[in-house]
């Protein structure tokens, strides 16, 4: 089959619409990497659907030459669920932001993850409300001064990875808008996963929250401030790959590898680990620890629409295909002449 398909290029996935994000916005990079990655999936444009909520990120579907729906605030997971259940032949992406999916859409976010609908969700996290011009978001750090928090935010921020783990998501990853190779590779892996896959992308809002993730974005610092997770490999980071992470009791700590500590003493990343380790990774935050990027978790589990449709098929096997004439004539009936 796939050999018959024309080979698509990134530009084939670009719609004819002008892109209206602010110059310098991190969204451009995510859009570019998405378009670059999609041909690798081997799917024609018509089988792909992008569904978004509301926010800067959620204009994304308009810029893709695929099917798409720009829906209402926070509810994209629900639209995607209805579409996937009825059309399991389609590849569905959900595009959302930190405000869209963690604030107004928090409910739908956790429920799509726990149901494990086969959808790839890209969460653009810029720790601010962009489209409404600069209020704090559920991921804004405590104390952040914004238009709606002149004395600093008093909300404790939400960690999307921790929430996703709490919802027992099967695939959880994180990447950074400016780390384009890593981003493309992570999006590809997420899109390949069967079940809900979540990719949190650190995305810079250069207008309202510039530099929120500069430590992870800057080429000069990111090797020391982030930790690229690799399945089965020890957790090593740093420009000179001279630092590692090991466990001290239940606490992770950074160790200097030049002092004779061997790789075997370090934590090894296991994407399938169903243990507290992945929660420990989720809680590793800059500046105390390097922040993990890459795939936190990749496990297979029952997929919602497979099970829903499986029940429909089982019902037909057990009872035969439904017949309305028989149904109406069933039970207690009587004839009037």
């Amino acid at each position, binding site marked *: 089959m796939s050999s018959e398909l024309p080979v698509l290029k990134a530009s084939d996935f670009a*719609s004819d*619409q002008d892109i209206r994000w602010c110059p310098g916005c991190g969204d451009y990079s995510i859009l570019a990497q998405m378009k670059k990655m999609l041909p690798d999936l081997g799917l*024609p*444009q*018509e*089988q792909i*659907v992008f*569904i978004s909520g*509301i926010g800067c990120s959620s204009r994304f*579907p*308009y810029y*893709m*030459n*695929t*099917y*798409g*729906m*720009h*829906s*209402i*605030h926070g*509810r994209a*997971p*629900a*639209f*995607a*669920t*209805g*579409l996937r*259940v*009825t*059309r399991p*032949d*389609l590849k569905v992406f959900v595009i959302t932001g930190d405000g869209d999916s963690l604030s107004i859409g928090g*409910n*739908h976010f956790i*429920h799509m993850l726990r149901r494990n609908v086969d959808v790839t969700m890209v969460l653009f996290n810029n720790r601010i409300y962009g489209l409404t011009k600069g209020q704090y978001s559920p991921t804004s750090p405590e104390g952040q001064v914004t238009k709606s928090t002149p004395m600093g935010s008093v909300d404790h921020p939400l960690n999307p990875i921790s929430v996703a783990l709490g919802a027992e998501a099967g695939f959880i990853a994180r990447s950074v808008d400016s780390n384009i190779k890593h981003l493309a590779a992570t999006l590809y892996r997420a899109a390949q996963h069967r079940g809900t896959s979540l990719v949190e992308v650190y995305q810079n809002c250069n207008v309202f929250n510039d530099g929120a993730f500069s430590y992870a974005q800057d080429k000069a610092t990111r090797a020391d401030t982030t930790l690229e997770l690799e399945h089965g490999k020890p957790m090593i980071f740093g420009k000179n790959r001279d630092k590692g992470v090991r466990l001290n009791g239940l606490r992770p700590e950074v160790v200097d590898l030049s002092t004779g500590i061997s790789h075997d003493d370090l934590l090894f990343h296991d994407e399938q680990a169903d243990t507290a380790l992945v929660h420990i990774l989720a809680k590793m935050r800059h500046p105390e620890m390097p922040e993990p990027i890459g795939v936190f978790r990749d496990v297979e589990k029952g997929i919602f629409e497979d099970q*829903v*449709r499986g*029940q*429909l098929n*089982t*019902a*037909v096997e*057990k009872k*035969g*295909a*439904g017949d*309305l*004439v028989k*149904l*109406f*004539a069933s*039970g*207690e*009936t*009587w*004839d*009037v*002449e």
Partner: protein
Amino acid sequence: MSTDTPPPVQSNKLVEVVSGITVRLAGDSGDGMQLLGTQLTNTSALAGNDVATFPDFPAEIRAPRGTRAGVSGFQVQFAAHEVHTPGDTLDALVAMNPAALVTNLSDLRPGGLLIVDEDSFEAKDLKLANLSTNPLEEPWTENYRLAKVPMTKLTRTAVAELGLSMKEADRCRNFFAMGMVYWLYGRDMDATMRFIKAKFSRLPEVQEANERALKAGWAFGETTELLGTSYQVEKAELPPGKYRNIMGNQALAWGLMTAANLSKKELFYGSYPITPASDILHELCKFKNYGVCTVQAEDEIAAVCAAIGAAYGGSMAVTTSSGPGIALKAEAMGLAVMIELPLLVINVQRGGPSTGLPTKTEQADLLQMLHGRNGEAPIPVLAAQSPGDCFDTAIEAWRIATQFMVPVVILSDGYIANGAEPWRVPDIAAMDPISIEHPTEFNHGDEFWPYARDRNLARPWAIPGTPNLMHRVGGLEKQDGTGNVSYDPDNHEKMVKTRAQKVANIARVIPPQKVNGPESGELLVLSWGGTYGACHTAVTKAMDAGLSVAHCHLRHMNPFPANLGEILSRYEQVLVPELNMGQLRMLIRDRFLVDAIGYNKVQGKPFSVSELLDKICEMAATESNKLCESKAG
């Protein structure tokens, strides 16, 4: 059908032939009154009577036993003629305890039959019902034919040999009461015996006990003098065909399934439980082998959004709720208007506002459905008039939704939803198919325009998976034709008007409004939705009494039928009875500049025929109220 039960209807006692009976069964919410009522309804329908029912139960699952708050009732009217309401005043009341007696007695007609379980009138029962004295020992009882039956003791005796616990034995008491009622009205016990066998097939002792209790109740009626005469209600003359009983929510579910079948679509149903709509979900869940795909969503918003997602994918999409849930769905309904996809939104109305009266009926969501969204967001609205009519309404709504590419609202209410009536089984093969086309080719040169218009102003329903027709929909205003995002002021106004015109165009395809009664005259009663039965019956009685009255019952609330204004102009007065504060009346006044008079009731209860008749007489019997009273009453 063969039977192993004794032939029950050949009573040795005096049998009086009557044209119809209204009976209410009332007891504690754990007493099985709804079950009893349903059985009596089915049996009466099987006997060929026309029936109408009104279940009335508390919102609490189990209010404290024996208290007034816990009283559950089921009213049924069965008759030898067509009936459209469960009846006004009761010919008979069965009260299983003092609380049931005092909360229902006022509806029993003078001289009516009152059957009580006298074992349930001990001091503790009276205290639970907040009574200081035993009502059975007071002089008012002379106004009725009171039958004090020791139902609890008789039931215990009837099932004594089976070794059940006292509690289990007492749970058979409703079947003893049922047996008495069946004797009283010459009802056949076969269908209920089959029901007991099926329901308790895994509990042989319980099955046996309930059968014995039922037979013992019947035998009690036959052998004692306590109940006196029994009654016979002849078969009603209904149009020929195969019949079954159907409840409103069930009829809606079956109508949706039929609409899916007629349009060769899979039915996707996204819902969140809410009284009194949940039974639609329960019903549809049973039919997975019919290709009915149900999702119980995390909330009302997700339910409608999932449905819209399914509609985008090309399925028949439905969501149901009641007023409070619809309030949550409002934003997504606006999106459905904007992206112009077919979708059915069903509102089974209950008492409001907010949580209101969850188990009681009201018609107060009409304006919510018409206007409860931001911006100019017109949606067609249809209202079902009776349990059986829910079936046809569902099919018509889906026809409109697909023909015009619009979300469509169906209004039902708690009264229709839980009520039952005989339903003539339709011939599906004779129904018109609902043809739906999904485009596969460009429609504008070498482009696809997702917002191109057909003669109905409907846009093409191109679905994902179709090569070359990729397009994006969304809540931002779209450029006419291309569907690209547009902030152009003239385009916005044009699109607002186009969406409104599209809904208005539906008036071209719906049938002209009919009137029951004279073509012109003194008074037109204009009603909608679940008040049909009471309004129809009251107007018919008034017409029989020689009053110049006609009845016009609306199904199409938006748009109104094209000839409605013309109809309204032919009558001197227009009366609009509604179970709200005057919502249709407001629309009629606004749309047609007609000085319509409202008759409004907001008690969580349906109209009685007599109160409507009084109002009609007050307005139309200008010459002689006596005529009205003597002939119509």
